[in-house]
């Protein structure tokens, strides 16, 4: 139980996907201008990441490894993730229109997010089992969500503050992201302490 907890904490804080591993930066910069949008994106990502790590583990273990075609991993994972997400989108649209409205267009968009493929590939590289893979994906998504919400809140404050003209817009956002990243590197020590 403790090791699962450790895995979760380390993926959320120590090895944060956005700020430490620098994956999934496009939604991080692109859809963090407003808090609501960022929250929607974070929810959709949580959903997709968990699902993608589970399904890609299954495909890798039961199809790619027995057939000895591991070199197809990347393309097979992309295929699996895209198909699963599309399928889920249809099911959600049919069964829960409310949830569909919240996640909406973010669901298909997130499919091409590098964090999703990154999680699936890292799972295989580290040799996680099924449950660990799912937990890893979920933890990565939680970390992503947390950073998304924090960053969106920061940017909402930034929009109202007096930023020098040359730093307005993307520059100050990038600087903020950089400072956040440095702050998150401080969690590296947490790993040894635990």
């Amino acid at each position: 139980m403790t090791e699962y907890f450790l895995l979760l904490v380390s993926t959320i804080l120590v090895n944060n996907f956005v700020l430490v591993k620098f994956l999934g930066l496009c939604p991080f910069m692109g859809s963090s201008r407003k808090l609501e949008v960022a929250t929607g994106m974070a929810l959709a990502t949580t959903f997709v990441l968990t699902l993608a790590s589970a399904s890609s583990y299954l495909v890798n273990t039961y199809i790619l490894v027995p057939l000895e075609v591991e070199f197809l991993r990347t393309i097979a994972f992309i295929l699996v993730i895209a198909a699963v997400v599309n399928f889920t989108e249809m099911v959600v649209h049919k069964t829960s229109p409310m949830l569909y409205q919240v996640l909406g267009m973010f669901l298909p968009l997130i499919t091409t997010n590098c964090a999703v493929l990154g999680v699936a590939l890292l799972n295989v590289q580290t040799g996680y089992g099924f449950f660990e893979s799912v937990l890893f994906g979920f933890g990565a998504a939680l970390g992503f969500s947390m950073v998304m919400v924090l960053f969106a809140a920061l940017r909402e404050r930034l929009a109202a503050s007096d930023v020098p003209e040359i730093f307005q817009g993307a520059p100050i956002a990038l600087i903020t992201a950089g400072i956040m990243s440095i702050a998150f590197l401080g969690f590296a020590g947490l790993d040894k302490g635990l």
Partner: protein
Amino acid sequence: MISAIIALALLAAFFGLVLGFSAIIFKVEASPVVEQIDKLLPQTQCAQCTYAGCRPYAEAIAEGEAEINMCPPGGQQTIQAIADLLDVEALPLAGGEEAQEEPGPILAIIDEQTCIGCTLCIQACPVDAILGAAKQMHTVIAAECTGCELCVEPCPVDCIDMVGVEENIKTWKWPKPVNHINHPLPLGNFELISEKTAGSF
């Protein structure tokens, strides 16, 4: 090599089949009634019906949550059209006597001397009929303005007035078709005629 091709092809075929079938199984029927009501609405997205736009209002009507008489830009014609479509009684336009009498077409006019160029009315306009830029004077494109009055509220200096359109050779339009509520059909005459014609058969 061959096994790789077969594996990927089978995987792709499997997912293709699953997605294809689930597209049929999980098909969401967009209610055709909503589409039809939406088509009858004027699409000004003015939100005077208290819904976010024409489509949400159409959905609310279709679900029976909203009355059909809450669309001021559409006026009595829209109410009549929706009533015909849904086969319900046409209601007078919500908002009492005042809204009932149609004041004729109105337009927004910006007093350009007072305008400070804040662009707030541009954001409010649902049909992009206001032209201008930040700190530049704005003006209304008369041909595009629907007279929805949404720009009046956000103006910080109250420089927007709603004025009636003067009827001249350029703005004259054919009168709108007679509607059933304000001018009920002359039933008496109709009976009279049918009595007359009845004898001849």
